């Protein structure tokens, strides 16, 4: 930053106050004057009231402030810890799930699978028709919300 030197006239009282403030803050008078000029040139202390400041648009560019738990990316999960899925909890899985030896004869023997599993021609209309989007129609076996696509990034923000 380059500086130029100039003379300014200020009244005796302002000079005395400026000298006092500079001494009190351990700074030079010129530094205080430069700071004041910079404030003036950049809008400086705009003198906004607290209420006006709190309502300034810069705080609401993408919408109102919301508590952490209600943020859009948390949609569907409003807790503070990791989502708990009892189906994935090893402590709660059954002995049958943990022990391969206890699986059923049907699970182990491909020959015992149903004719429907083996024969594509016997698949249902639902399986063959791409227009029947499973996201829209999760089918009778799906749990509520299971087939719904994940929320998109920023969804609900705009």
């Amino acid at each position, binding site marked *: 930053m380059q500086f130029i030197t100039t003379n300014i006239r200020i009244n005796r009282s302002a000079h005395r106050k400026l000298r006092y403030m500079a001494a009190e803050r351990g700074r030079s008078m010129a530094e205080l004057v430069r700071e004041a000029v910079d404030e003036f040139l950049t809008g*400086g202390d705009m003198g906004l009231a607290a209420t006006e400041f709190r309502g300034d*648009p810069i705080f609401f560019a993408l919408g109102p402030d919301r508590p952490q738990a209600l943020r859009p990316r948390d949609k569907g999960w409003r807790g503070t810890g990791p989502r708990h899925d009892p189906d994935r909890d090893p402590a709660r899985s059954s002995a049958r799930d943990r022990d391969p030896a206890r699986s059923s004869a049907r699970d182990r023997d491909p020959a015992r699978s149903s004719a429907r599993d083996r024969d594509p021609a016997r698949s249902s209309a639902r399986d063959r028709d791409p227009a029947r989007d499973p996201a829209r129609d999760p089918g009778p076996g799906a749990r509520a919300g299971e087939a719904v696509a994940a929320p998109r990034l920023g969804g609900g*923000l705009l």
Partner: protein
Amino acid sequence: MRVFIDASALLALADPGNDGHHAAVQSLRRLDPPPALITTDFALAEALAGMHARHGRPAAESLQRSISASRALRVAHVDPDLFRAAWNLYASPDCAALDFGDCTSLAAVRALGLRHAMTFSTSPWVEAVAGLRRLPVTAAGAPR
């Protein structure tokens, strides 16, 4: 009181989904009297690009409208002198850890004689200015 707002702080202030949003807003609203917020056109460009990349063009336009309408935020332009100062900082070994955007912020803060800067950047640019205080501060008063 005047507070410099860098690109990371702008994004935190503007986006309720940003991890730093709450801390950024609260730390400014606590100040009495309300501070004047100063940023640079370079920081603004970086913030708009960041918003565009994260949330898309409509979000970036929304940020632009908010900045235009804001009375709390003022934009200092990086003039040729400031640009040269930032350029020299970027070339100096002391600023090897800073990117060029940080160097423009550093040069602006020095030129404007600011004492407070808000940033969520992990870059140590605030610490490169003697006496410059980083916002937000923790409850204990220590820099984050």
